[in-house]
């Protein structure tokens, strides 16, 4: 067993290896595979307790959706003048969460950010689960989700004799989000194939072999396979990259193309994308800190990974803060009395508490990350990651509710209050999200083994002491 030897301790301090603990290829395979291979009774009790908790919250979601279908969408609190409320707030919130996964897997890949390898798999999985949660809201807002296929997609049918309004951003949204889900799922699955083959080859039972073998698609790790795989991965990364920008831009069009004061602004697309990446990274952070602790992944998800993510949170958080300021400036500078009123009303109207909640969580809190100590403090970043997501939820709520509750006609002003169904449904989506994530973390390799090995190999070549003859090469597992 060879340990990577670095010659220059100074260099080591500046640019520490991405994977700590002197892991070699076999260690990586063993460490990550063993999580998925543990027997049921070997899985720590805390895992089952966690799963039971999230599972019951998921059951709450099921109950709430059934209640909605049985009684109609009136069980949600949205009504004139706030026709869109928690449903679309939650939709935008969850879609935004997903963006970190795509950014990590696609953009950081194209920019050759090697530190992405430890976190991309779980971030991509998170993306999928977040998009599922997001999809629930528009789907059930139709009240009759089994008819939603031809309400949302242009499928010929004799029930409506009508097409969707293609000038409406709502149908652009349907295409944006479904494309996003498809590409993300493909990307995630493609990355999984070599790892599934590793698991297949290590599997002992026949059932496991067949199931894993089925999903490994006959992967043998030949040079030809790798060549195709890498080309395919690159293409998917190329397809996903514009999606990072386009999906949330289109989501922002839902608002920006309307004429409601506070919505009708050109700043929305970039501002929404920055906010999405901001909240997504915060969610990745929350999940990874928990997994790192529960599954002993400290050597794979190192402080450097976390610090890098905090830097992205700082950058995107600052962009979001800048966007808030710009919105306010333009509201004043435009001279438009409705726009001015809306922004004044946001900060000092009946929803002032939501506005200042958003400002505190999104603008002030990420600024702490200028401090390197705080950026590397795990308890601090854990709390901060939750604070950021609270702030980002409030951002969407503020944009949606405050613009709608007081628009042009004072006679139609109102105040939105969520019903218990609104609240329980939103909480329920966390049940879905966390249950899916727990199942994923337990039954699939949550760190991309083959990619991490790529990083290890790269570091070996770069830093191995001259004359050590690279003896570790023969230890490369058959699929790496």
């Amino acid at each position: 067993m060879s340990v990577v030897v670095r010659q220059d301790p100074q260099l080591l301090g500046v640019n520490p290896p991405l994977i700590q603990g002197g892991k070699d290829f076999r260690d990586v395979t063993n460490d990550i595979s063993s999580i998925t291979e543990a027997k049921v009774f070997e899985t720590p009790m805390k895992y089952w307790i966690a799963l039971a908790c999230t599972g019951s919250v998921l059951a709450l979601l099921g109950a709430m959706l059934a209640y909605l279908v049985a009684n109609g969408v009136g069980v949600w609190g949205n009504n004139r003048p706030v026709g869109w409320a928690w449903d679309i707030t939650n939709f935008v919130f969850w879609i935004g969460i997903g963006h970190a996964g795509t950014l990590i897997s696609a953009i950081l890949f194209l920019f050759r950010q090697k530190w992405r390898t430890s976190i991309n798999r779980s971030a991509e999985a998170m993306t999928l689960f977040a998009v599922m949660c997001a999809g629930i809201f528009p789907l059930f807002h139709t009240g009759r989700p089994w008819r939603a296929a031809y309400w949302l997609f242009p499928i010929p049918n004799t029930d409506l004799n009508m097409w969707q309004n293609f000038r409406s951003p709502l149908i652009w949204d349907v295409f944006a989000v479904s494309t996003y889900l498809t590409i993300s799922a493909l990307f995630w699955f493609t990355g999984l194939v070599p790892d599934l083959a590793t698991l297949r080859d290590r599997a002992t039972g026949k059932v496991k072999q067949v199931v894993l073998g089925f999903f490994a698609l006959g992967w043998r790790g030949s040079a030809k396979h790798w060549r195709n795989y890498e080309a395919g991965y690159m293409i998917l990364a190329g397809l996903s990259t514009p999606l990072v920008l386009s999906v949330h831009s289109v989501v922002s069009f839902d608002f920006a193309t309307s004429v409601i004061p506070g919505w009708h602004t050109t700043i929305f697309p970039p501002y929404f994308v920055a906010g999405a990446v901001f909240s997504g990274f915060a969610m990745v952070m929350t999940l990874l800190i928990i997994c790192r602790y529960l599954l002993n992944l400290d050597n794979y998800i190192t402080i450097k990974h976390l610090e890098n993510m905090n830097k992205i949170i700082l950058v995107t958080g600052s962009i979001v803060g800048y966007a808030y300021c710009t919105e306010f400036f333009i509201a004043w500078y435009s001279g438009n009395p409705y726009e001015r009123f809306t922004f004044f009303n946001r900060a000092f109207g009946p929803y002032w508490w939501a506005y200042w909640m958003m400002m505190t969580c999104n603008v002030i809190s990420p600024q702490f990350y200028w401090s390197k100590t705080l950026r590397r403090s795990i308890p601090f970043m854990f709390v901060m990651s939750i604070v950021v997501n609270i702030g980002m939820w409030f951002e969407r709520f503020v944009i949606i509710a405050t613009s709608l509750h007081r628009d042009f006609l004072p006679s139609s002003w109102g105040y939105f209050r969520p019903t218990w169904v609104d609240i329980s449904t939103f909480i329920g989506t966390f049940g879905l999200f966390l249950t899916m994530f727990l199942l994923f973390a337990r039954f699939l390799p949550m760190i991309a083994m083959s990619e991490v090995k790529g990083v290890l190999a790269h570091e070996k070549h770069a830093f191995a002491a001259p004359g050590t003859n690279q003896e570790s090469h023969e230890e490369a597992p058959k699929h790496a």
Partner: protein
Amino acid sequence: MAAIFSKSSDLILKVVGAVVGLGAVSGIAAFAYLSYPTVIDIGYQPEQPVAYSHKLHAGELGMNCFYCHSTVYRGAFAAIPGTETCMGCHSQVRPASPRLEKVRNSYETGEPIHWLKIHDLPDYVFFNHRAHIGAGVSCVTCHGRVDQMVEVRQEKPLNMAWCVDCHRNPAPNIRPAALVTQLDWVPEGDPAEIGRKIIEEKKLNPPTNCSGCHR
């Protein structure tokens, strides 16, 4: 290590995939079709609490629809007549008929008869009877030949496509307003031509935008 899958696996996979895929698609299509209002709603004919025959009253006796459903030309909602309306005649006509037992009870106690609603639109649709009657859309267009039904049944799908079809091309279903309750009216000549003239006269413009019906 022995191979997990045999060589025929690829073929089996393709066949199973095709079968499952086609099964899923046809299952969804069947579900979608069988849950269409045209399929599940037409023919709805519940048994009413009182064996009231529209065929007798509106058909053979020739009573005007407006006599009982007296709000349709002035209100959005088609009123179901109160027991008093029934008793207006039946205190004189067959006052002791056993079939009218429930009607008499209702009259004495003030407890209304619980008629079942047959033509029931979803809550998010606003249908205005007055607008349609005023425009010259006959009862028969949506309710069928009620004057020939002993028990009323739903004859039209009442789904959105069906509404929208008429809103896009109303002329064949427009007649002189005085004739809307004449369910057996046969137009002389092309009904669309007659309709077109009335539409021009009354400047009718049925909405096809969402908020026309979904307010």
